């Protein structure tokens, strides 16, 4: 613990700390560009040069380790001269285009130039010109002459995103940041490079020339997409969301955002945004006022209830809805006598319902993941489903965390995965059971009776050996596990395994309110139907909240059939979408930026937010719509003045923890056979098709991750079926079919076809798991 003195102030720092660390601890600002607390030290910008007593030359604060008794001067004449000379060098080739630069007003170079630059340049030679590049729809490299070569973007790729998509090519003045042979930058975290870039070299393409930064209001919000609940700063001008930036929260998103969180805002003002209540009368849509529309809804629901009984009413809600919306929808349905409500639209296996002791959750804090030394991930498209959790594990893996994976696909996680078991989807329970058995044998504990007959393979033994040596282990079930036909069995096995290991166990969770939906009781009550059952046995009326069933449901074909077969569909949505085809009433509700609300993330953190802009057109916050509807239907207890009042009725933040529990009781372990006849479907939900907002973000839809779904198969399977990669094929599930291109992925297990769900191209197909056939078109 060396002590040092900076600018006359003393401080003691940890061993190995740098002068920059010490200065930060003292609150002394040392100018810098290349230094970033989350990245490795490069010491290349030289802006942080300081005077160190007895040193023969100025030292970079970021790279100089503190030595006992060191005396540092950050503002002495000597230090200032060095800093100013570096600033002069940085500026000589920097274009003087601040007036048209998007970074203007939030530019580190501009800010520091005020303090360290001269009013006029001594450099009167020609300035360097660096050719622009195109690296995709998100990050603009249009003005690379602005680059100061700090390599933050390069280090971000190498260290945080896990893939070096940008590098510095060339020497000296010819050095420039380029992507590898002109490829696009496809990382799901690429937008962070924009934040990291201290100048206007990397800027946001969707935001480009949209506004000057000082015209923007900064408002806090919470991401409505994945279950992390990333904290956002939403920047607003003239009642329009112009840009989204991370709000630093070390316990959740740190200082990062996934591209989905960052660029989805484009979808908020999509062309098919619903801004006026609409009624379908005699097969034709017409705009209505709220009074008419709500009256029509109340009348419609009452009619169906009277004619067919309340049990013929059903409600489907997206898990991206707010806590208050989900709660009021459930309360409304119960108020009119129906227990048919569900928000778990992509779930297949509901056998755990009524067997739970609490809401399924992550089983630990998000930040705890960083401290685990052993991890088992079961059935997760980790990078695409939970980009920042993946990043957190990537950092932990570098520090020695052993990551093990049981999954049906072998996408590159861009981190060291010590053991992998890639098996067909139906074999996931068997593989997990093998690991349970192997661990039980290692621990010399009794093997659960139903696992007695299971043979343990090498893959399971290796995973067990890794897990068995951990002191702090986590077992996580991903989206594929949660959507699996035997999800409850997987959960039981994970619970069993965690018990043997003394490990934490939980679900990563699919969406912003995957935990909140349970607390809001947006699940079927006694005798009620779950999401799958409501579609399998079509209801006479549906209330849809924030959802496009043909894309959000596990079995889109069943959803479409049900919607078309029913008498009365009410769509509460921010978008028209496919509801135009089958709904009777469309009520324009506010997306998360236009309403107050709450998300409860995977770790059970209750995060409430306010609307950042006024609702577009005649759209209204859904909680208000549901409140009025409750009143119109004569249901008691719908007199809320604020969304906070609704939230407090559900749970206070400190009451959430007690309601979380992953344990199941009263379900027996029954491991299905690993081998089945016929091809099985593996379905991921592509990262930019996860919900209605992100599906409408123009920029995200241009990324390579948003490419048309293809039927991915192992080469041997392609051969067996007489298919070639690239050829159009007809894919069938039951009576549903779709035409897509075949593609080859030899990392897939034999016997399965990977075909994305949640995409319009596959909405005529059946469930996300189960039998599938492929034939030449």
């Amino acid at each position, binding site marked *: 613990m060396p002590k040092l003195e900076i600018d006359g102030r003393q401080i003691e720092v940890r061993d190995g700390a740098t002068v920059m660390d010490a200065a930060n601890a003292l609150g002394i600002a040392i100018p810098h560009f290349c230094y970033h607390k989350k990245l490795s030290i490069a010491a290349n910008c030289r802006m942080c040069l300081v005077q160190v007593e007895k040193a023969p030359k100025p030292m970079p604060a970021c790279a100089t380790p503190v030595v006992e008794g060191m005396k540092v001067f950050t503002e002495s004449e000597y230090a200032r001269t060095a800093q100013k000379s570096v600033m002069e060098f940085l500026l000589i080739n920097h274009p003087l285009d601040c007036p048209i630069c998007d970074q203007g007003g939030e530019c580190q170079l501009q800010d520091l130039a005020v303090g360290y630059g001269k009013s006029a340049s001594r450099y009167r030679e020609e300035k360097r010109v660096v050719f622009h590049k195109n690296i995709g729809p998100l990050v603009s490299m249009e003005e690379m002459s602005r680059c100061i070569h700090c390599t933050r973007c390069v280090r971000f790729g190498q260290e945080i995103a896990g893939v070096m998509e940008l590098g510095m090519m060339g020497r*000296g003045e010819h050095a420039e940041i380029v992507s590898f042979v002109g490829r696009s930058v496809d990382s799901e975290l690429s937008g962070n490079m924009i934040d990291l870039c201290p100048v206007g070299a990397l800027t946001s393409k969707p935001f480009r020339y949209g506004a000057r930064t000082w015209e923007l209001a900064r408002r806090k919000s919470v991401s409505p997409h994945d279950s992390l609940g990333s904290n956002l700063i939403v920047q607003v001008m003239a009642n329009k969301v112009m840009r989204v930036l991370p709000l630093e929260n070390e316990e959740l998103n740190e200082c990062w955002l996934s591209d989905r969180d960052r660029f989805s805002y484009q979808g908020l003002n999509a062309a098919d945004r619903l801004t006026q209540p609409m009624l379908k009368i005699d097969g034709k849509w017409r705009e209505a006022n709220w009074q008419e529309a709500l009256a029509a809804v109340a009348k419609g629901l009452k009619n169906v209830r009277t004619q067919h009984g309340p049990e013929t009413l059903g409600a489907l809600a997206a898990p991206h809805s707010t806590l208050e919306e989900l709660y009021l929808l459930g309360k409304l349905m119960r108020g009119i006598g129906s227990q048919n409500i569900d928000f778990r639209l992509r779930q297949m296996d509901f056998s755990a319902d009524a067997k739970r002791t609490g809401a399924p959750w992550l089983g630990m804090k998000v930040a705890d993941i960083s401290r685990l030394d052993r991890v088992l991930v079961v059935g997760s498209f980790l990078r695409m489903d939970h980009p920042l959790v993946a990043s957190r594990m990537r950092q932990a893996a570098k520090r020695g965390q052993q990551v093990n994976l049981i999954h049906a696909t072998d996408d590159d996680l861009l981190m060291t995965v010590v053991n992998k078991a890639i098996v067909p989807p139906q074999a996931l329970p068997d593989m997990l059971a093998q690991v349970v058995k192997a661990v039980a044998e290692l621990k010399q504990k009794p093997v659960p009776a139903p696992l007695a007959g299971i043979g343990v393979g090498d893959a399971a033994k290796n995973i067990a050996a890794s897990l068995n040596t951990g002191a702090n282990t986590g077992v996580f079930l991903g989206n594929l596990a949660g959507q699996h036909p035997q999800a409850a069995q997987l959960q039981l096995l994970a619970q069993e395994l965690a018990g043997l290991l003394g490990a934490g166990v939980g679900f990563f969770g699919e969406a912003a309110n995957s935990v909140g939906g349970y607390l809001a009781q947006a699940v079927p009550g006694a005798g009620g139907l779950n999401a799958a059952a409501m579609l399998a046995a079509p209801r006479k009326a549906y209330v849809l909240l924030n959802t496009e069933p043909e894309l959000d449901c596990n079995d889109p074909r069943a959803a479409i059939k049900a919607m078309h077969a029913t008498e009365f569909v009410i769509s509460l949505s921010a978008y028209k979408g496919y509801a135009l085809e089958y709904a009777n009433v469309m009520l324009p509700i506010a997306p998360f930026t236009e309403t107050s609300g709450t998300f409860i993330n995977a770790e059970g953190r209750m995060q409430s937010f306010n609307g950042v802009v006024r609702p577009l057109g005649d759209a209204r916050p859904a909680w208000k719509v549901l409140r009025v509807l409750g009143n119109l239907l004569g249901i008691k207890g719908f007199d809320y003045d604020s969304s906070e009042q609704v939230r407090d009725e559900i749970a206070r933040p400190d009451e959430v923890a007690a309601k979380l529990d992953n344990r199941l009781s009263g379900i027996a372990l029954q491991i299905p056979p690993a081998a089945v006849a016929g091809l099985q479907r593996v379905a991921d939900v592509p990262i930019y098709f996860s919900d209605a907002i992100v599906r409408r973000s123009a920029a995200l839809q241009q990324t390579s991750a948003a490419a048309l779904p293809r039927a991915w198969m192992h080469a041997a399977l392609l051969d067996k079926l007489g298919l070639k990669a690239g050829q159009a094929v007809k894919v069938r599930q039951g009576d549903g079919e779709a035409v897509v291109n075949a593609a080859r992925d030899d990392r897939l297990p034999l016997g399965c076809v990977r075909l994305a769900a949640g995409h319009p191209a596959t909405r005529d197909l059946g469930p996300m798991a189960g039998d599938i056939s492929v034939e030449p078109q």
Partner: protein
Amino acid sequence: MLDYGPDAILMKGLDGSNWRLKDYEARGGYDALKKILRENIAPEAVIAEVKKSGLRGRGGAGFPAGLKWSFMPKQYAGAKYLVCNTDEGEPGTFKDRDIIRYNPHMLIEGMLIGAYATGAGVGYNYIHGEIWAEYELFERALDEAHAAGYLGKNILGTDFSFELHAFHGYGAYVCGEETGLLESVEGKKGQPRFKPPFPASYGLYGKPTTINNTETFAAVPWIINHGGDAFLALGRPNNGGTKIFSVSGHVNRPGNYEVRLGTPFAKLLEMAGGMRGGKRIKAVIPGGSSAPVIPGEIMMQTDLDFDCVAKAGSMLGSGAVIVMDETTCMVRALERLSYFYFEESCGQCTPCREGTGWMYRVVHRIEHGKGRQEDLDLLSNVADNIAGRTICALGDAAAGPVKSFVKHFREEFQYHIDHKRCMVNVPGGYFTVSNPSAGRAA
């Protein structure tokens, strides 16, 4: 017979073809290694002998070799590396090439002793990317040494093992910087690392590593054979032994000369046949292009050792002596030098990346008759702002010539600015003829 001068000890008895193992052994080669292994001399004792010899790094910095070896952690469990820097890119320097093409086994033996002393198990010789024949020859020498049991496992039947590889470089000047070289060996872009940590604690692949220049290693067998004291006695206190000087420029017999440290420059000039055409000596760069230039009359009074040259205002560097006669335009000479550093800056850190181009452009303008009155102060100031503020010494190397040329030959630069043409006007000289519109003479 190759003649490196009467004092030569390293390059003695070479004729250009007697580089093979049998020739080297006939000259007493590998005796030093055998002596160490036979007498079981402790590594510490080897280091002590090298320290005693006053052997200073021959690559340019002149750091005491024995001291550098002693920085290697002794009780280190993992791999340790020994690296030889034959990335001889310094303009004016061509001595290491001679060592590996005429006496490669002396280097191999020197590295073996270095490995023994520092506990390194694997070594690399990073050979300049622009010399291919020498690289191939060195590979053949390695094969010979392997076959004879001097390299590999259990050398000469002892417990000592050392594997040595030749590594053909990629041609960038900056790869001659020791940490840039390490990056390059690792297969990365040759960019220097910031220090600390130094290679002795975090070197090649993050392991403790000693890096020395070719000539430094080559001197080690002689030191072991004859004792550190004898080596030291060849030179002067703190400046032990002989040194190979690469003499180039306006002399009658440019080439490599091995002389004792402390030999007067005038003597070396005489060995090189004196000034070409009997012209007057104008200036000398005594230690490779990075060393500050010294006016001829001062240089003629200076002895060639690290301390004397430093006292004269320059540095001995790699021992590349560039001699310029009165026909040389110093503006044009500096233009060429500053262009070199502008081209060779790795671009990693700001002062060097930006400053080298700035300096070159200003000198280029002055040379081409577009100089401004404020340019000379500007040049010195820009050079000051680069020196000492960069990650590696390339920044200092780029600043040194600019500062010294302007300091010692300011009137020539001023003349260029004032008259838009050259002060020097000797037929056949290295200068600009008259005004730039008339075109170039040379």
